[in-house]
């Protein structure tokens, strides 16, 4: 895997553009977006629906590729990575939390949490041990044998956070992680997210529509048609 530079910003985005479609149907979602996120920072990204927040997060998470500009994660230009290296980065260096929990229905919570480690090639016993430990950290130690459809919305999202962190990533990307939860549950889940962010020395970029939750982050940026600006 490519070497990570220890002193570089966690995220460095320069003039990134992204569009969909072609010809008359071409829609430019992002134009010349610039961003720098310090290591250990918790950044909230807000903005109206459809402005490209999720698209931007997908670019940072190596789930999609920009049309123009450059993205560096921990000093590594991700545009230079091979498909296999991108997969390896997603596996070990980036944790992704989605608005929907994204747990696999055929697997227990413990297996779901262990899945990134299993994909990385860890032994099943080791992966399951680490999943059990992290499940306990997020308060789901008693629910590890349950399947996702047997968990509440808050439990599902806490399980998803545990899964995102089990491989020890340096960057956590969350796309409206509390969007499907009621206010009280959302607050609790966000608080847990903050604790894990601090205890694990993460760099986090969180897309949210919830202004009060965004206010609890180190910095909030608003994405609009002209790019990112301080909220």
């Amino acid at each position: 895997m490519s070497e990570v530079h220890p002193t570089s910003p966690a995220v460095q985005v320069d003039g990134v553009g992204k569009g969909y479609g072609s010809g008359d149907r071409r829609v430019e979602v992002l134009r010349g977006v610039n961003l720098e996120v310090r290591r250990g920072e918790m950044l909230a990204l807000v903005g109206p629906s459809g402005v490209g927040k999720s698209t931007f997060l997908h670019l940072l998470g190596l789930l999609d590729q920009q049309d123009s500009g450059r993205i560096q994660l921990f000093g590594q230009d991700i545009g230079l990575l091979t498909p296999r290296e991108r997969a390896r980065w997603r596996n070990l260096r980036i944790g992704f939390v989605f608005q929907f929990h994204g747990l696999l229905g055929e697997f227990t919570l413990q297996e779901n949490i262990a899945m990134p480690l299993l994909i990385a090639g860890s032994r099943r016993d080791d992966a399951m041990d680490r999943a059990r430990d992290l499940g306990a950290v997020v308060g789901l130690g008693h629910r590890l044998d349950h399947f996702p459809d047997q968990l509440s919305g808050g439990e599902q999202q806490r399980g998803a956070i545990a899964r995102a962190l089990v491989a020890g990533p340096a960057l956590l990307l969350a796309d409206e992680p509390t969007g499907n939860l009621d206010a009280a549950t959302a607050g609790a889940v966000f608080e847990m997210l903050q604790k894990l962010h601090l205890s694990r020395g993460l760099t986090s970029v969180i897309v949210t529509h919830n202004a009060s939750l965004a206010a609890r982050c180190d910095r909030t940026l608003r994405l609009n048609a002209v790019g990112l600006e301080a909220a």
Partner: protein
Amino acid sequence: MRALLLLAGRYLVGLRRRTHVAAVSGVTFGAMALGAAALVLTLALLEGFQTTIRRQLTERGVHAELRPRSGASLPGGDWLQRLRQRHPELELRALSGGAVWCTSDGEAAPAELEVVDTLSRVEVNRILAASLGVGAGAPLTVASPRLVLTPLGFAPVRRTLDVAAVTPLRPGEERAVLRVPPELGRALLGLQGPRRVEVRSPDPALAWDVASRVQGELPDDVEVVSFRELNRPLLAALALERVMIGFGVALIMVVAALNLLCNLALLAAEKRLDSALLQAMGLDSARLRQLFLLLGVGVGAAGGLAGTLLGAVGAWVLDVTHAIPLPAGVFIVSHVPFRPTPGAAAVVLGISMLAALLASLPPALAVARRSVVEGLRYE
């Protein structure tokens, strides 16, 4: 690979929320199993019948034939006598003959007269016996095309003989045949050298090697025709029958494979979000493709294996229990013979795997090409 096996196994067996996919997987498994079982049973049936036919050929037929390279008669000399001395384990019968008319009790029929140098009695085959209504001990009058001068003019040579035995038909024998010792043959047809020599081994298993045993000990103007060459049309027909029927029945496997393809495509659609999530967690496209290949080949291999076992056991039971009897006197066997062989089972398993692999490729390639982002939006 550990993660892929876990995922494939759980998707095949678990399918906690997608019971209709599980049912379709079950149907696919059953289709592959039925196809494999049908193919194994068919091949076992063909092998059973063909083995019987080949056994009949080796037990009743001629294992090799010595013929003149040119002309109608074999060369003279003591080469045949020497051949008999060198190979006492082989039966060599020198034959000559021609066409005759046979009559008995007012019935008349043309027949092929075979003069056999090792024969000491008169034999008729079943066709001649049936057409004249004669059996062992019955008198039979033979008129040959050889003419002799009588007070009334030229007349054919006639002899009245006692039939000693009615012999079963040899493989491929479709004409009326009368077999007589040499002295009777000379009386009916005059002096003739043998036209051919039939060679047989008492052990039918050696039929295929008889020609090579005598090959190097023959005069230059005598050629040996092997068992395989003597029966080439029939053996070729048997091989062709096996290939064509096997191919026809194998089409069932193609149908089952198409069903597998549809099932995998359905599973790929059902698991679109899962596929995207797995890729977001670090599963690369190549391994995602492997996962769906594993799923397809897993169902195909399991179905093929189950069907092969089912077919082999079924064929064995049908054969041992004589479950399908045949009318006596019409067929050469009393029941429909099944003979499952390891080779046929291996072929069926191979076909199952190949069909499953080919059927799995399109959906697996399609899944691996999908956009992760599109998959995540699927929810």
